[in-house]
């Protein structure tokens, strides 16, 4: 996967809690056997009418957010189904960073396996980002090494993530290749069980 170290980009605010992966990518698009091309189906039922035209009341369709690469949302983002098609769709659409007060466990993991950086920030900080991005074209910077989010105008937030996920994201490692260096340990475990 592509490493991610620093990212600067436009914020798209989606002020809802408990956004489940069925909303991120509805089931009718899970039938494909490829990893690519899911971006056009992202938030499909929220973005499009039955006839395929864009819904004007869904903010991702607002031109103001064209080219957004940082999604900021409410708590428990990515709950529900384990479908990795959800991070694939977000990534294919152009999102590289997702910020929320909390994430569902499987979704969080799935992001880090695909070079998407999930960032947990306090509800207060998240709300601040959402408010600013709702009222203006708002760009922020993320530095994974320093574990910081800044906007160059005084906003600064630090975030935590497990050391292992940080290294995987910074280096873009092939996790299976890393694990296979421990092949002997796996074989030993198998021999003794």
């Amino acid at each position, binding site marked *: 996967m592509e490493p991610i170290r620093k990212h600067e980009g436009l914020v798209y605010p989606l002020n*809802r*809690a*408990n956004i*489940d992966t*069925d*909303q991120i990518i*509805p*089931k*009718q698009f*899970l*039938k*494909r*056997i*490829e*990893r690519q091309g899911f971006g056009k189906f992202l938030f499909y*039922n929220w973005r499009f009418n*039955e006839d395929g035209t864009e819904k004007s009341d869904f903010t991702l369709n607002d031109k103001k957010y064209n080219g957004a690469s940082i999604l900021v949302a*409410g*708590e*428990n983002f990515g*709950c*529900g*189904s*384990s*479908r*990795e098609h959800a*991070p694939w769709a977000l990534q294919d659409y152009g999102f590289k960073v997702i910020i929320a007060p*909390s994430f*569902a*466990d*499987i979704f969080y*993991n*799935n992001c880090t*396996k*695909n070079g998407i950086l999930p960032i947990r920030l306090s509800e207060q900080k998240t709300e601040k980002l959402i408010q600013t991005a709702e009222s203006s074209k708002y760009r922020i910077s993320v530095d994974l090494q320093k574990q910081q989010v800044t906007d160059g105008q005084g906003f600064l937030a630090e975030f935590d993530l*497990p*050391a*292992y996920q940080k*290294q995987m994201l910074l280096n873009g490692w*092939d*996790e*299976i290749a890393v*694990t*296979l260096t*421990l092949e002997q*340990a*796996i074989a030993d*475990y*198998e021999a003794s*069980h």
Partner: protein
Amino acid sequence: MSKPKTIIEKIWERHVVHQEQDKPDLLYIDLHLVHEVTSPQAFEGLRMKNRSVRRPELTYATMDHNVPTKHRNIVKDAISKKQMETLKENCSQFGISLADIDHPDQGIVHVIGPELGLTQPGKTIVCGDSHTSTHGAFGALAFGIGTSEVEHVLATQTLWQAPPKSLNVQVNGKLGKGVTSKDLILAIIAKYGVRFGTGYVIEYTGEAIRDLTMEERMTVCNMSIEAGARAGLISPDDITVEYLQGRRHVPQEPEEYEAISREWKALATDPGAVYDATVTIDAEEIEPQVSWGTNPGMCIPVSANVPDPSRAETASKKEEIERALEYMGLQPGQPIDEVPIEHVFIGSCTNSRLSDLRRAAEVVRSKKVHRNVQAIVVPGSFSVKTAAEAEGLDVIFTQAGFEWRDAGCSMCLAMNDDIVPPGERCASTSNRNFEGRQGNGARTHLVSPEMAAAAAIEGHFVDVRKFTEATLQS
């Protein structure tokens, strides 16, 4: 005397392959279940790197999400068809056992694992499916994974996992008559919310849990993920041992089975073991539940009214309730038992086992499905279907006006042709009432099999306890 441990700690310790600083543990996986939707990209990944499946004999596949339940072999959707064919090719190329669409072992992956005795206490079990938590009912550590992790397990039979925190969900007292384990898990999620389990593995304990049959326990553990927990389990006991005895993949010799049963039961959480957190609920307080909103925490007793957003504690809660009510086409304060329905779905990995079907059949026996309702029963596996037919349940259902279908995930997520049309309402025994889950614009109400059956007859929700009583008197 050594420190008392939870079953979660015991299983974990036995599966650690490798530990080092600043890394999760490398955990060995005993059983990897595979289905057609979340595996094709994983197999493709192996091919691209010229990797093989490390332990095909610990890997078991079936097709369940896409399969037609009406005309078994007519897959109209070309992309679905391709996905199923791809699984077949992948299993054949990598040497994996597959319960294909017309195989007698076919069924929903979380129904057939236990049925075949592949699911056993103490195992680590994964599948590219969030309802893998179901297998925790046996005292296995079972959790859903993404496709990248599926590929990792195929290639290495391991996963990097941080040791989980443990959460004791203690259910005191006994469930009332007509109140099921589905009502129990819905009430737990309604009380504590859809993310109280995030970061935890749940162990369900207490009198009401010990009283449950294995199939009822599976219903509870199945919905752990709806509380945010990747895994939820129950310490094994005599009920577990009895259920598994004689199943295909457990030891058949009585002495051998006896020995392994002792090992299984020794996995149970030690008295005095410490959990990272505990929540409690009184079983006696629980009524039959109906979900009113768009996540499984939005659930109320059947005697209650739909919530009023103006009474919400915070502005964001208010907005969430308003949005859910709008999607669901409900009014604040409306009694939930007056809400008319157009569809009933009895099935899914939550509630499609033989005992679920028996209880629903008992409710509809000698009655007729309401004229406004289309009702289907989708057994969880081919073998559930056969067993149900052997005792005449299919006849009870079809005489009442239900359709009797073939096994699969079906209308739980509507990836096949079993779809609820926009704006229509379904009483469903499945696990998720998310927007669009059963079809774009479809409105899902989660209930137990008994409650779904009673709603099918009445055309609206009804307290199944009163319904059954009235039937007995008439």
